[in-house]
């Protein structure tokens, strides 16, 4: 992808981010913080690239460490979000 395409995607993603976050109901702001935590661990992609590459052992170990940390976040973040969201219930209609 060329730079301008990436820039265009970024600019539009910022608009989407703005709107999508404002539309989150305040009652779910804590899960929002937890889930953004989880998704920002998409930098695991960078860790995987480094961990997969042969050749430079230092880079590989740094990459593996990044994968561990990001995984903690991904699994922990999604799981704790799921746990929280499971608690939000409507009044049962009797």
């Amino acid at each position, binding site marked *: 992808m*060329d*730079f301008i395409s990436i820039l265009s*995607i*970024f600019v539009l*993603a*910022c608009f*989407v*981010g*703005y709107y*999508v976050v404002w*539309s*989150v*109901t*305040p*009652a*779910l*702001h*804590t*899960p*929002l*913080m937890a*889930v*953004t*935590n989880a*998704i*920002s*661990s998409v*930098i*695991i*992609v*960078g*860790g*995987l*690239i*480094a961990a*997969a590459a*042969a050749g*430079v052992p230092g*880079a*590989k170990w*740094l990459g593996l460490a*990044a*994968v561990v*940390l990001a*995984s903690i*976040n*991904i*699994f*922990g*973040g*999604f*799981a*704790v979000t799921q*746990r*929280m*969201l*499971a*608690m939000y*219930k*409507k009044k049962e209609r009797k």
Partner: protein
Amino acid sequence: MEFALLLASGAAAVPSWVLLAYLVAGVCFILALRGLSSPESSRRGNIYGMVGMAIAVATTLATHEIAGIGEILAAIGIGAIIGLTIARRIAMTAMPQLVAAFHSLVGMAAVLVAAAAFLNPGAFGILDAGGDILAVSRIEMALGAAIGAITFSGSVIAFAKLNGNMSGAPILLPMRHVINLGTVAAIVVMTGLYAMSPAAGPGEGALFWIICAAAFAVGFLLIIPIGGADMPVVVSMLNSYSGWAAAAMGFTLGNTAMIITGALVGSSGAILSYIMCRAMNRSFISVIAGGFGQDASSGDKGPAIDRPYKAGSAEDAAFLLGQADKVIIVPGYGMAVAQAQHVLKEMTDHLKAKGVEVKFAIHPVAGRMPGHMNVLLAEANVPYDEVFELEDINSEFAQADVAFVIGANDVTNPAAKTDKSSPIYGMPVLDVEKARTTLFIKRSMGGAGYAGVENELFFRDNTMMLLADAKKMVEEIVKALD
């Protein structure tokens, strides 16, 4: 155009399906946040998030030659076990700390990825024809590492303050603004030097490591002067930064999923910080400048402890509540500290059984993070359609018989409406004083709220103070209601 060539990402020969997969992952993340617009759709949203992450990871693994898949799976496995264990065990009241801790991990991971890219630029496809790291990539790498490092050390301090490992009181170094600004300026200058230095191959890049070290220091210095209760704003701000860092990495790798995520997380952190600052009627700058906020739980201070007030017992409270037609409960930070949400729910069930109408009123900054009270009430099985935002319920206090304030203080303080000299002046507050009777549960007359200001309401005629730990007090009220 040379400029265009210069900026073009190195990894040009990526097949279409890979780009498409990352786009799909990015869209999944959008849908994950979109789901949070209502509790019903939120669980599906979270699934989208997981799917998106799985797509991103699988695509990356499928498109790179992998030297040792075993190690990678082990790394993921270790992370999964730790992460799931934490997620299962953590108490809901500890959410603010947990979020800070998770942030520190993201920050550290970003530093590690940037360092790995620095050591093995070939794997990331950021080498130019001469075997040097591309200038743009150097900037992106250095910025990514710096923001990651600030996020890491800042979040560690935030965690320590929120978790009580460290006093929440601001630690004010002399000349801190000069030191901080100076260090940040130095990082920017060094990043520029690093980008322009002619032959900075893997060996010569001492500048890169200095930038990282300086950034770790900045994160530390920036956060210690900020008071414990301002930590949520700081955590959000760091969240926002880490989003922008992920986006920068996305530019380096030409990765749509990272760019979209970065923009989402960046917006989310910025907007939550903004919402908190607005609800506290403080400027973002004043939060970051630090120095505000005492330790909310330090107790016994404040001048007016000998003013007359009406104290009540659990039995008095139970009587008033049982007689009421309509009760509005206002939870605050103290409810979280005391873990009183479950017994509070029990109390509302008793009241409802007696035909009393019970509603919950949540101030946007009640507790110690946005939505904190909502999560705790949800944990205690309070249906979310009995829980109302400030704007939606504030006009109803006038028709309520009892406003039941449990561990909240600042968010009810009428000084915000009337006293121009008060530090919380202008902050929107819940009009609990309009109810026929206001009950306040707190442990002492001295303990102020986070803002450290006196609450006039404690001394009003239609206020009854219930001085005890919130959980114990509500337990006794439940007993008395039986």
